[in-house]
Each structure stands twice: as structure tokens, then as C-alpha cells.
């Protein structure tokens, strides 16, 4: 019988094994700890499909480790793992109706996480090629900075982070999506489910509020 562990599901889904179907139906009597965990998540997701918020939040929180493990195995760098987790959670939310509770939840999630990890690697590759000169410039600029400037910058960054945290959720989301992650308006609209106009308004208000907070402007 197929033994479903987070790692095994990825290996099987990646087509590296000769096994026929990694998402084999979950057996009536789970035999291992990982299978029991898989069945528990499957039950939560089934409840979430019916609108149970508590089960949904549990299953998402319980999915983080598996998503990270899949992303790591795909070769995603340590500092980019959390971005893959975020992207995967958003995709899971968008396609949660495609999960069939008669099948393994872990196999379903691992397939989505593997896809988002590949997307992240590709986009990182593209950005890396584009920004090679910028990184050089950054290194050179950094060498000229002395320790006191560094410390000032760290303090400024911390103040900015704190100010962003204090923003209302809509404005904070707009800043995170458009300014920090540098998504286009269309991408941000797709990721957040908000329309582009609302995002623009939120970003405008957020920038105004941040200016006021940091520089004492009205």
C-alpha cells in the first residue's frame, strides 16, 4: 500500500517514481502517523469546503511545514521559502473546490506547492538576470556607508515597518503587494481579489499616512 509522507508525495508527484498514482485513495484504516495526519487534514479541508472557518484555519496552519518541505526539495532558497508558502496558501484558497476529500490532502497540497515553488524559481531567475547590475551598484554603495549610517538606516527601517503594521488592513495589503513585493496592479488585484482601483486608492492613502507618521506631515 502506498505510504504517504510529505516527502514521498512530492517525489511521486514529480514523476521520479514508477508508481502509478500518488494520490491513491486514502485507505479506510490509516496505518501510519503521517497517514493519520493526512486524513485529519483531509477532514478539515472537507469541512472548510462547506464553510467551516475554524477547520480551514487549522488545515492551513497545519499545511505550512509540508509546503516548506516541498519548496525546499524543489530547490527554493531558504529566504524565499516564506514567499512560496504565501503564494501556495493563496492558490489553495482559490482552488479549494478542486480537492476531493476521498483522496490524499497532502498529495493535493504538495502538487500545488511544487508548482508555486517552480514559479518562484523561474521568477527569481528572471529577476536575477535583470538585476545583476543593480546588485553590483548596491554592493559598491554599501562599501561607502559607514557604521553610523547603517545603524540609522536600521532604525528607519524598523520605524517604517512599525508604521506599516499600524495601517488599516486594506492599506497595509496595498503597500505589501504593490510597494514591498513590487507586484503590478493587475497581479496584486488577482492575488488579493480586490479591484485595481481600490488597491490604488488604498496605496495612495497608505503613503499619505506613512508620510504623516514618519515626517510629521499632515
Amino acid at each position, binding site marked *: 500500500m502506498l505510504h504517504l509522507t510529505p516527502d514521498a508525495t512530492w517525489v511521486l508527484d514529480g514523476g521520479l517514481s514508477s508508481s502509478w498514482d500518488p494520490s491513491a485513495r486514502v485507505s479506510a484504516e490509516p496505518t501510519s502517523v503521517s497517514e493519520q495526519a493526512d486524513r485529519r487534514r483531509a477532514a478539515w479541508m472537507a469541512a472548510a469546503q462547506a464553510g467551516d472557518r475554524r477547520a480551514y484555519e487549522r488545515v492551513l496552519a497545519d499545511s505550512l511545514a509540508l509546503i516548506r518541505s516541498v519548496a525546499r526539495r524543489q530547490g527554493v532558497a531558504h529566504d524565499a521559502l516564506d514567499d512560496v508558502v504565501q503564494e501556495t496558501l493563496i492558490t489553495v484558497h482559490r*482552488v479549494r473546490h478542486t480537492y476531493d476529500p476521498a483522496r490524499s490532502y497532502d498529495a493535493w497540497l504538495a502538487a500545488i506547492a511544487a508548482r508555486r515553488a517552480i514559479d518562484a524559481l523561474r521568477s527569481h531567475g528572471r529577476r536575477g538576470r535583470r538585476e545583476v547590475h543593480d546588485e553590483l551598484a548596491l554592493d559598491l554603495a554599501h562599501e561607502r556607508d559607514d557604521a553610523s549610517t547603517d545603524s540609522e538606516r536600521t532604525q528607519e527601517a524598523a520605524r517604517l515597518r512599525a508604521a506599516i503594521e499600524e495601517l488599516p488592513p486594506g492599506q497595509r495589503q496595498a503597500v505589501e503587494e504593490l510597494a514591498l513585493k513590487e507586484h503590478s496592479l493587475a497581479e496584486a488585484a488577482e492575488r488579493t481579489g480586490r479591484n485595481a482601483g481600490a488597491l490604488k486608492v488604498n496605496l495612495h492613502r497608505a503613503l499619505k499616512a506613512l508620510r504623516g507618521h514618519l515626517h510629521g506631515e499632515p
Partner: protein
Amino acid sequence: MSSDPRHQTLIDALGAELTPVRRLLPPWLRTLGWLLVVAAIAAVLLIHFGPAPMLRRWAGAPDLAWAAAGAVLTAVSAAWVAFVLGVPGRSRAWAWLPLPGVLLWIGASGMGCLRTWVVPGTSIATLHQSTDCLVFIVSFSIPLSALMIWLLRRACPLRPVLTAMMVGLASAAASASLLGIFHAFDAAATDLLVHALAVGIVVAANAAMGGRLLSRR
């Protein structure tokens, strides 16, 4: 485990906008829906042309019947695989499933070609007549592909190009099966080449356009 505080914020936000969802219908049910449309078209063609000429051709050249069976098998299996690939977590190894049908289809059609060399004087399609076959297969494949892509609209094909190729293969095989109902010519080399070209065009067009349509997830 320790994790980025952003995750908890996102989980809370996603939880807040959770609504009940209607589950995706199982792949076999959506395959059945698509096949019913193909069957309805086949019924109309059979009523119009009658089954007798087709059965006569099959009796005279059994490899034509085998080729038709291969095309039907390809259409059914490729359609099912297209719907299966729209569900995350299902193995891409399923993409090999239509292979036996394809081999039977090509093999039996190839035998037909060989027979026309061995038994000369059989009715062989001219290039002009074969072009009609190409137009038929391509033009029937368009609505059949569109219908399948519509049936996949709520799915999540993580391999959109492979899925779109299966859509193309299923549509082209179904169109070739429908063509067999009234196709008055034997499986000659020109015919086989034109059929292969038509299937190639449909699969490639789907991979190029369908893949883009399906990759929005």
C-alpha cells in the same frame, strides 16, 4: 514551528473571506458529459448517412473498424486524462493512458495503407478529397476543444500545456471517429498523412492557445 508572522495574518484573512464552495465534479462525470455531446453529433450523422455504408466498409476492410475503435478509445481516454490533469495531486503518468488507443488507431490505419499496396485497385483518396478530411477534423475539433476547455474552467491544471494537448488529442480523435461514419475512402497513405497532419494541427493549436487559457490558475 516558528514561522513568518505574515502567514498567520494571511490565514486569518483567508479564513475571514471563506465561503462554502461547490466541489468540482469527478473527472469521469465531466468526461461523460463531453462524450454525450460527441455521441449526439454521431447520432445525427448516423441518421443522416445511415449505418449501412460504414458497416459495409468495415466488413470489407476490418482494419478500418480497428482504426475507428482506436480513435474512439483515444478520444475517451484522452478526454478523461484531460479532466484528471485538472485536479492537483493526480499523477502526470496518466498522460500515457491514451497511448494504446493511439497505437491501435495509427497501427490499423497503417495496415490499411499496406493493404492498398498489396491489393491494388482499392479506392484511394486524392489529395483534394483528403483536404476535405483535414477541414472536417480541424473544424469539428474547434467546438469540441472549446467545450472541453469550458468544462475545465473551474479546474486547476498545474500542467496546462500537457492538459491542453490532451484536450486537442481527444477532440481530434473524436472528430476522426465522426468522420469514419461517412468517410467514403479507404485508409490510404495520403489519407493517413492528412489525418496525422490534422491531429497534429489540433494538438499543437491547443497546446499553444488552450495552454494559455488554462494557465490562469
